[in-house]
């Protein structure tokens, strides 16, 4: 069924939160998934793959390891929903960013975060893993190499580096609705529903409009 990009963003946001990610990360996840769909990639499928997994973790929490440019989790599998926003943060804080990220799951999601965050001219990032690399500009992603490596659910060693991209105008994006497979949507909504609170008699009695005559 066709879904609006806003619906996709908001449902992905709630799904990420439903799976326990902090609200701020969930906000960014919604935008990353929206951005991927806007660029014709199925961000929802990627997101569900990550949310389905129990074994992905945040990056380890010690600063010196980040500063040496290699990011990894303690147990091995790295969550792109946590690594992606941080990559965007470091885009601004370092003149020339080069980070290696070990065993990141569904790395295409990293591209969604970066494509959404990069703005203006002269700012771009290259993500590389296996035999594929993505050059990411504002609202644009160019693929080089083997596209089959893009959306495999496996973990990959990803290299992220800033590159120059002078004289490239931002892409104009027109799509407002995209096709989303119904089965994927149901799975996404099931995660989103985890943010809802079950009604009780007490909540019904204090809810808006409760106990009052609606008809006038």
């Amino acid at each position, binding site marked *: *069924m*066709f*879904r*609006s*990009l*806003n*619906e996709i963003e908001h449902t992905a946001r709630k799904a990420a939160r439903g799976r326990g990610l*902090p*609200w*701020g*990360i969930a*906000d*960014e996840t919604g*935008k990353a998934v929206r951005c991927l769909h806007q660029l014709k990639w199925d961000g929802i499928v990627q997101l569900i793959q990550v949310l389905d997994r129990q074994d992905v973790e*945040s*990056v380890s*929490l010690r*600063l010196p390891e*980040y500063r040496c440019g290699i990011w990894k989790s303690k147990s091995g599998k790295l969550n792109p929903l*946590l690594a992606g*926003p*941080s990559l*965007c*943060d*470091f*885009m*601004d*804080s370092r003149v020339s960013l080069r980070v290696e990220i070990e065993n990141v799951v569904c790395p295409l999601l990293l591209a969604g975060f970066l494509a959404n*965050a990069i*703005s203006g001219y002269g700012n771009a990032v290259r993500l590389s893993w296996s035999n594929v690399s993505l050059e990411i500009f504002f609202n644009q992603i160019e693929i080089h190499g083997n596209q089959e490596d893009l959306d495999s659910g496996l973990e990959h060693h990803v290299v992220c580096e800033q590159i120059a991209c002078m004289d490239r105008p931002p892409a104009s994006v*027109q799509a*407002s*609705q995209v096709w989303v497979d119904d089965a994927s949507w149901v799975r996404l909504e099931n995660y989103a*529903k*985890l*943010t*809802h*609170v*079950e*009604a*009780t008699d*007490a*909540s*019904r009695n*204090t*809810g*808006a*409009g*409760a106990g*009052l005559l*609606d*008809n*006038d």
Partner: protein
Amino acid sequence: MALRPPHDVMRLERMGSFHQTRLSFMRALLRFLKKGNWQVERTCWDIDIQGVGIAIYRVSGPEHIYSLLCFANDLPDEKRSDRVIADEWDASFVLFDGVPAKADITRLKRNVPKQEAGHYTQKELVLSRANRSVRLFEHVVDSLSSGRQPDLKKMDAVGYLMRTTAVYGNGKFGISDRERIDCRPEFRGPFRAELLSVWLIRAFTVDIAEHLANLRGGSRAVKLDTEIRRRLGIGNATGLGMAPFLVLHPALIHAWMQVRETALARVRNIERSSSEIIRGFSILLSRAMLGVESWTTADPRQQKRIEKLKHDLIQLAAYVKTPGLNMPYPWDSLVDWSAQNLTLEGQELVVSLVMEPHGELIDELAEGMSIDESRYFKIDGAQKISGALEFIQETYPWALNIDYSDPMSIARFWYVSEEKLEPRLGDRFDEPGAEKEHPLAYARDIDRLYRDLMIFQKEHSDDPVMAEFLLAYPMHRHAVRRIQLVGHFPYAEIQDNLISQSMLPIDLLRCKLSFFGANKFDPKSDRWVRINMYQHAPFPDEFSHMDEDDWIYPPLRSSWR
């Protein structure tokens, strides 16, 4: 003249006292339509004696055409409900981008009456539905069918024939995202497509009442007198669904507030006003008094406020008779006087009133009330932790001074109910679900951020940057984004604790609805409110020969026929 500071304006108590102004969205929309010579015509009317069928209103501007498709229904009384979860309504509506083809009409007829459960395309811009007022609709149809005008007291006690129970835009349920149309001049202001729909829906509510009266009464039936007709607005019932919007769109709220405060500052900066302007202001005040006289509510808190407001207006009328307005900086003196002598309701009505005679000075500001929020979403990872701490100390003393160990300070939590899929406010210590709290507790969250920033700074002597802090503390990303945004937009933050026991959600609703241009706020609890929109505004069929902007305050009785 400086703007009123955020710590004065951005308090719930004051925001909950706002009234519409000439910058409000529905007024700015009507000015825009008039300026562009937009035309409205009813291109289809196929409704039977049971009130079932379809009507289409076409709105044509210089570059675009829009169509409001209205699907009328014969709804049994017991199914009529304001609640957002109702699944059938007296009428359902869709604003369509362009002129619908037959296939579009067939498709929309199948889907629009289902509202949330229907399927939509990018051509659909706004989705809405409305129920008849049981108190008034039948009375008006009955009166007109018998050749009489309806009872004015009954008319004024309700003020509308139908109430919308939801108006959805911006991509909801698969309709068009706002981003697809916000480059069009007519939709540059906030909520323009939604409010265009509501204006047309108001016309439909009168048309269908007159139509049914005509079918029932035949040659005896009459139409509503045009001046009586103008007393009808369109009702709306608004619950907590609107409240989180003000918190979750801080940059946009700043834009609204800053424009409002800038307009006020421009007026206060006027050195002298002509006697004509002052005389006009005096008449306006009399009209505002009439409007307040007809403002009724069963809510005890609002009743008291209205009574005090009436007293405020008597004081204001006395002030206007003094030479005060003939002195230098008359409006500045008046605003200062109101701050000393009137209630918050009165002070904010003065804000609205002093803007009224000064359209030429301030109306252009209404075009600056939108903002591209996505430009300000990204976190500045290079921000120094020391700078962030300093900013929080300077900007958030009101949040840092709250004792969050006091249960009263954290008594509530905002959540979305599984049953209704709408925001609600729960009691943290008596109801389940606090672990699913939505991020509206920003005062508490910024206090937590501040404490962790202090710890992080102590652990790292080299003054690290925000990107490094957030690797260790990703749970603070939403609070960091918020403080960085407030650094750009001082009116972005409501400076109150939204989870305290004493917080009144109705204040949030009132603030937002005042920007829409609503009036006659009628709280039904501290969590939902009925309002009236477009009351006294021109109808589409009289728009070309009427003043499009002199309607918000009711006309003086002496000007009636």
